[in-house]
């Protein structure tokens, strides 16, 4: 493997300095660990700012937040929650609809720490290949999870759901959930690159669908500066979303990454020595004018 592929972002560190080349990564880890700490302040230090877990929580005894996917499963299972659950889910839906659904995956979900580490180690060890399956598998998984709730009348997925199990475990006691963490780590390390978060996880699929119209997006607005070093591609958990935006000039595709599958992790912004990527809104997507366009003809 190309040494560059083992250590993407080296050029960015040299060009921008270590801090600027890891800015979004640091912010993201701060967000993930900070949220976890916020939930742990109660059980560890008896400071109750947030109660509950990501399934449903109550902040400062006023703000309810509820996982909309769980609420949907509960409704399919034929049960009816109380109004605070609907309010909580509406707040969560609105938030992720604005900032991008999969911000949940890269800025909140604790499993992301596990799979990011696995991917890092995979690069370091130069592991390649492994089992390949469609990224769309996750949408099938999402369908299966919803069908399970409908058919069994229980939240069957919750028996094995690693995402809720790990976060709940960290707050309420892990039990055997460490095995689940280890299994996902090994799966992503040795079986399939980004196998869990980018191929299988039904929560990721759900938030991906939710984020299709998200306001906050990453743009390759300086794509003409791209020197094809592939560093962004190597670090990206959803590589397929980069190409249309980065290489779409000739096809009249705008520089903004519009796919809901982009997790807004911002790692591409970090590792790019040419400063191609930035955060922006979806409305800043001005496709280049191609071919014989009237406007281009009248331009001086």
């Amino acid at each position, binding site marked *: 493997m190309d040494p560059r592929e083992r250590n993407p972002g080296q050029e960015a560190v040299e060009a921008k300095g270590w801090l600027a080349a890891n800015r979004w990564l640091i912010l993201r880890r701060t967000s993930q660990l900070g949220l976890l700490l916020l939930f742990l302040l109660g059980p560890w230090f008896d400071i109750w700012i947030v109660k*509950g877990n990501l399934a449903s929580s109550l902040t400062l005894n006023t703000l309810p937040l509820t996982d909309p996917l769980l609420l949907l499963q509960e409704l399919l299972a034929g*049960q009816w929650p109380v109004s605070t659950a609907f309010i909580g889910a509406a707040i969560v839906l609105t938030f992720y609809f604005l900032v991008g659904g999969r911000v949940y995956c890269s800025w909140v979900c604790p499993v992301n720490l596990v799979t990011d580490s696995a991917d890092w180690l995979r690069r370091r060890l130069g592991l390649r290949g492994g089992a390949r399956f469609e990224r769309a598998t996750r949408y099938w998984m999402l369908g299966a999870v919803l069908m399970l709730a409908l058919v069994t*009348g229980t939240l*069957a997925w919750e028996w094995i759901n690693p995402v809720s199990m790990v976060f709940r475990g960290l707050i309420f006691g892990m*039990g055997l959930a460490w095995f689940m963490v280890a299994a996902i780590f090994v799966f992503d390390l040795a079986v399939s690159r980004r196998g869990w978060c980018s191929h299988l996880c039904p929560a990721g699929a759900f938030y991906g669908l939710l984020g299709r119209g998200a306001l906050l997006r990453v743009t390759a607005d300086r794509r003409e500066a791209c020197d094809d070093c592939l560093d962004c591609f190597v670090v990206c958990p959803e590589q397929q979303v980069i190409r249309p935006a980065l290489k779409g000039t000739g096809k009249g595709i705008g520089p903004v990454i519009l796919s809901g599958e982009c997790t807004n992790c911002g790692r591409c912004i970090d590792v790019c020595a040419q400063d191609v990527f930035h955060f922006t809104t979806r409305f800043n997507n001005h496709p280049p004018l191609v071919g014989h366009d009237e406007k281009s003809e009248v331009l001086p």
Partner: protein
Amino acid sequence: MNEASKKSADAARRKFLTDIVRTAGGVGLMALDVGLFARQSAALPATAIRPPGALPEDDFLGACIRCGLCVRDCPYDTLRLSKPGEPVPTGTPYFVAREVPCEMCEDIPCVAACPSGALDRKLEKIDDARMGLAVLIDQENCIAFQGLRCEVCFNVCPIRGKAITLEYEHNRRSGKHARFLPEVHSNACTGCGKCEEACILEEAAIKVLPVHLAKGELGHHYRLGWKEKQRAGGALVSPDQPHHYNLPKNLDCDLQGQGLLKKEGDKEVPYSSNPLDTLNRKGGL
């Protein structure tokens, strides 16, 4: 369309279909496994008691989103969330009566905290909760049944005198003492588990069980004659007639405790007050 592009279109269609079948097969197998596993492990151990107001277990498992807010708002740390690997569906709340029973808070904070409706807000009075039912399950070892004074379960019961009463009974072993036997009444017992926690035995003789395990149910076609009679205000099948025993003149018998009765108003007694007269009488009684 020429031959080559037709072939490649065929290949593409073929790949598309195999990919779909492959994914659907894999995911379907996963779903089947998860469904079967969830179904199999839905059985709750008898010692795991759900919080007050919990829906029937089948509904509960469809409603509880496993957020732990009930656990957080339980002021006595009675409730806990099941960890992966425990025999209770993972992430759902329960308590073990022998370890920490429910203190039956009047404001029922666990129910108020529940966003999913798995703990039913229709439960307004904690006395109406039916978390389980206490059963004096081992009469062989309960020391009250040995004729010793204990009554601990009776005394710790929050609804003492209604949920658990003491029934006095003759002690046939000693012949001269009473036994003070605790008796649980399902119309008042909430299943809080205070009795089970307090039982002085090494292994509690009184235990809180899920109601469906603890209670029998009469066949729905059964009609208890005396209740029907009471409800109707009189006998429904044949007119009420006093039972006639084949007894000496002027005597009657009451089987409900009073025994042999002399008919009122009769001064003449068919037997002498001296027992020897009766014994020496010819022809027996």
